[in-house]
C-alpha cells in the first residue's frame, strides 16, 4: 500500500504548502479534540492573513489562540469566541474580522463543503442578524435561509487513532467538528495519538475513511482541560 502510506514524520512535512492568506478548517470544540502540534507548527511557520474556520479560537496561550499574538489570523469563522483577551482586543479594534456562524450551520457548512453541496437551506438564523443579505425561501410555509458551504486550502484534524492509510477513529467528545473538517480540506492533515497498522481498525467502526486524509502525523498532546468540574461527594 505504498501509494496510500500517508504518514509523515515531521510537523514541517505535515503543514508543507501552507502559505499566507490561505483558509484553514480546524477540528475541535473548545480545547477538546484540537490538533495541538499542527497549530504550533502554523505559529512557527509565521504565515499571515489566515482565515480560520473553527467553532472556537482556543484560549490566550493554547490552541488557535496562540496564532493571535503575531496577528497571523485575518478572519475567524466561528460560533463562539469569548475565551480570550487578545482575541477581544483585536476584534474590538477592528484588526480581526469575525464571521459569527451558528454552530449547527457551521458544522453543516463544513460537511456540505466536503460533500460537494455548494449550499443548503436552514431555518437557523431566520429573522436574526445571521440572515442579513441571505436568500430567503419558503418550504411548507416556513422561511429558510440559504447558507453556502465552506472548504479550506488545508484542514487540520485531531483523531485518536489512524491507520497508515488514513482511516480515522475519534474518542469520545473529542470527535466534535473533526469528521467534517477532515472532508473539507484540499489538503487534510491529521494529528493522532496513535498510528496503527492497516487492518487493525474494524472497517465498521471507522469514523473517517482514509480517502479524505492526505497526511498523518504522530502527535503529543497536553489535552488541557478548560473547565474542570468534579462530582460532589
Amino acid at each position, binding site marked *: 500500500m505504498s501509494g496510500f502510506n500517508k504518514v509523515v514524520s515531521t510537523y514541517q512535512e505535515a503543514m508543507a504548502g501552507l502559505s499566507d492568506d490561505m483558509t484553514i478548517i480546524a477540528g475541535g470544540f473548545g480545547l477538546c479534540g484540537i490538533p495541538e502540534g499542527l497549530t504550533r507548527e502554523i505559529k512557527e511557520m509565521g504565515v499571515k492573513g489566515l482565515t480560520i474556520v473553527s467553532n472556537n479560537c482556543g484560549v490566550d496561550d493554547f490552541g488557535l489562540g496562540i496564532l493571535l499574538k503575531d496577528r497571523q489570523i485575518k478572519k475567524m469563522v466561528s460560533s*463562539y*469566541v469569548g475565551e480570550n483577551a487578545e482575541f477581544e482586543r483585536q476584534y474590538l479594534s477592528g484588526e480581526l474580522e469575525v464571521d459569527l456562524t451558528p454552530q449547527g450551520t457551521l458544522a453543516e457548512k463544513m460537511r456540505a463543503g466536503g460533500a460537494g453541496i455548494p449550499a443548503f437551506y436552514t431555518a437557523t438564523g431566520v429573522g*436574526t*442578524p445571521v440572515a442579513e443579505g441571505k436568500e430567503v425561501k419558503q418550504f411548507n410555509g416556513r422561511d429558510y435561509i440559504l447558507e453556502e458551504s465552506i472548504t479550506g486550502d488545508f484542514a487540520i484534524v485531531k483523531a485518536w487513532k489512524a491507520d497508515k492509510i488514513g482511516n480515522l477513529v475519534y474518542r469520545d*467528545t473529542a470527535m*466534535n467538528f473533526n469528521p467534517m473538517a477532515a472532508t473539507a480540506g484540499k489538503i487534510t492533515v491529521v494529528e493522532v495519538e496513535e498510528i496503527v497498522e492497516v487492518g487493525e481498525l474494524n472497517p465498521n467502526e471507522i469514523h473517517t475513511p482514509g480517502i479524505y486524509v492526505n497526511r498523518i502525523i504522530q502527535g503529543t498532546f497536553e489535552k488541557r482541560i478548560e473547565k474542570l468540574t468534579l462530582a460532589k461527594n
Partner: protein
Amino acid sequence: MSLNRDQIAMRVAQELKDGYYVNLGIGIPTLVANYVPEDIDVMLQSENGLLGIGPYPTEEQVDADMINAGKETVTAALGASIFSSAESFAMIRGGHVDLTVLGAFEVDQNGNIASYMIPGKLVKGMGGAMDLVAGAENIIVTMTHADKRDNSKLLESCSLPLTGVGCVKKIVTNLAVLEVKNGAFHLLERAPGVSVEEIQQKTAGKLVVPDHVPEMSF
C-alpha cells in the same frame, strides 16, 4: 416570594416527561438536571456530540476528551452515544430533541427571543442557540422576570438582536410560569407569595391573566 435559581430549575423540571430527550443550555437550565423527578428518565443531549450526559466525573474519571457544550468535564450516562457536531445538529435542527431549555436576555409576546448579543458589548457568539431555537418544537426559556433596575424582560417586542423568531412557547421566571401564544403572554402560575399585580407590573408585553392564577407547587 421570588424564586432563586435552583427553584426556577425545580419548576422547569416538572415539565419533563419520561422518555424525553432534552437539551439544557448554560446557567439555570443546567441546574434542571439536578431535579429530574425520580420516577422518570430523561436523556440529556449536549450539542458538542453527546447524547446521554452523565454526572460530573470523580477525580479518577476526569477525561479531557469528555466534555459538555459548556466545556465542563462530564461522564457519559448508561446508554449514551457519541457523534459529530454535524450529526448533533441534525438531531437538533431536525426536531428530534423533545425539549430545549435555555436562558435569554429578552423574550417578547410573539415568541421572539434575544439571548446572544448586546450591541456595544463584546459579541461572543451564538454558539448553538440559534440552531436550538429554530429546531425545537418545545422551548422553555428561563430567566429573571426583570433586570436589576426592574426593567421587564418580557416585552412587546425584543429590543436586542434576535436569536430566533416566534419560537418560545413557555417561560419560567423567578415570578411566574407563562405561555406565549396568540401574540400575548398568558399567565399560568405565580411563584409562592408573588402577587398577580407584581407580575403585571413587571411584564411590559401584553399579559393575559385568567380569573384564577394558581401558585406553583413543588
